[in-house]
C-alpha cells in the first residue's frame, strides 16, 4: 500500500478522495477521514496564510504516512495539505484511511493528524478582518501532548 501525499494550493473534494480509496475494490470495509477547515475565530479573521517548506513538507508527510502504514493494516491512505491563503470555511487538510475493519482506519487517521500538527513544516499566519496582517499562530502544548501519546515517536 503506497500512501498518496499531496501538498497543493488548490482545494480538494473529500467525497471524491474517499470514493477513490475504495473504488473498484471489494476488500475494504472501512474508510475513515478527517477534514480540517479554516475558522474565522468569531469574525476576527479574514483568512489564514499557510507557509510551507517545499520539498520537506512532502517528505515529512510521506514519512508520517509511511509510519501509519507500518503500524496499522491499511488498504489505502490519502493525505492532502494545502498552502497559501485559505478563507474561513475553506478546507486546509484531509486525511482518509481505508482498512478491512474500522479500528485501523480510525486510529491511523487520528495518528496522522496528531503528527501532522507537530512535525509537518507548515506555519499559519492570521489575516485580520480589519484588513491588517495578524500574528503567526503559536504552537499549542496540547498538540505536542496529543502526538506524544502514541507510544513510540516517529
Amino acid at each position, binding site marked *: 500500500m503506497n500512501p498518496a501525499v499531496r501538498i497543493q494550493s488548490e482545494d480538494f473534494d473529500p467525497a471524491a478522495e474517499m470514493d477513490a480509496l475504495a473504488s473498484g475494490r471489494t476488500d475494504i470495509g472501512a474508510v475513515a477521514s478527517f477534514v*480540517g477547515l479554516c475558522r474565522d475565530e468569531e469574525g476576527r479573521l479574514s483568512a489564514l496564510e*499557510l*507557509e*510551507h*517548506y517545499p*520539498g*520537506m513538507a512532502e*517528505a*515529512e508527510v510521506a514519512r508520517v504516512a509511511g509510519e501509519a502504514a507500518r503500524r496499522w493494516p491499511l488498504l489505502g491512505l490519502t493525505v492532502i*495539505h494545502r498552502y497559501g491563503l485559505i478563507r474561513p470555511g475553506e478546507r*486546509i*487538510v484531509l486525511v482518509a484511511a481505508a482498512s478491512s475493519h474500522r479500528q485501523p482506519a480510525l486510529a491511523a487517521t487520528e495518528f496522522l*493528524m496528531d503528527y*501532522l*500538527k*507537530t*512535525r*509537518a*513544516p*507548515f*506555519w*499559519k*499566519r492570521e489575516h485580520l478582518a480589519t484588513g491588517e496582517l495578524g500574528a*503567526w*499562530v*503559536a*504552537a499549542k502544548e496540547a*498538540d505536542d501532548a496529543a502526538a506524544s501519546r502514541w507510544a513510540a515517536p516517529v
Partner: protein
Amino acid sequence: MKLVYFAWVRERVGRAEEHVEPPAGIGTVAELVAWLKSRGEGYAHAFENERVIRAAIDHVHARPDASLQGAREVAFFPPMTGG
C-alpha cells in the same frame, strides 16, 4: 552550505535563504546557531530563544547536537502549526 528560513525566523533574519561558509569548528546545528547569532541584530533576534527554534538538515528534522557533516541545506523555523 545553503540556509533556509521560514515564518517569523525568516522575517527576523530578513531573508528566505542564503549560502554561507561557516568557519572551521562549526560541526553541529547548535554551533551553527551560535555562529549565526554573531552575524547581526536580525539573527540575534531570530535565535534569541534557541530552545523554540527547530532545525532540519536536508529535509529531515534535526536536533541541536546533530552533525552538519555532508549537509547541503539546513533549515531553521518556529514550531510548526499545520494541520
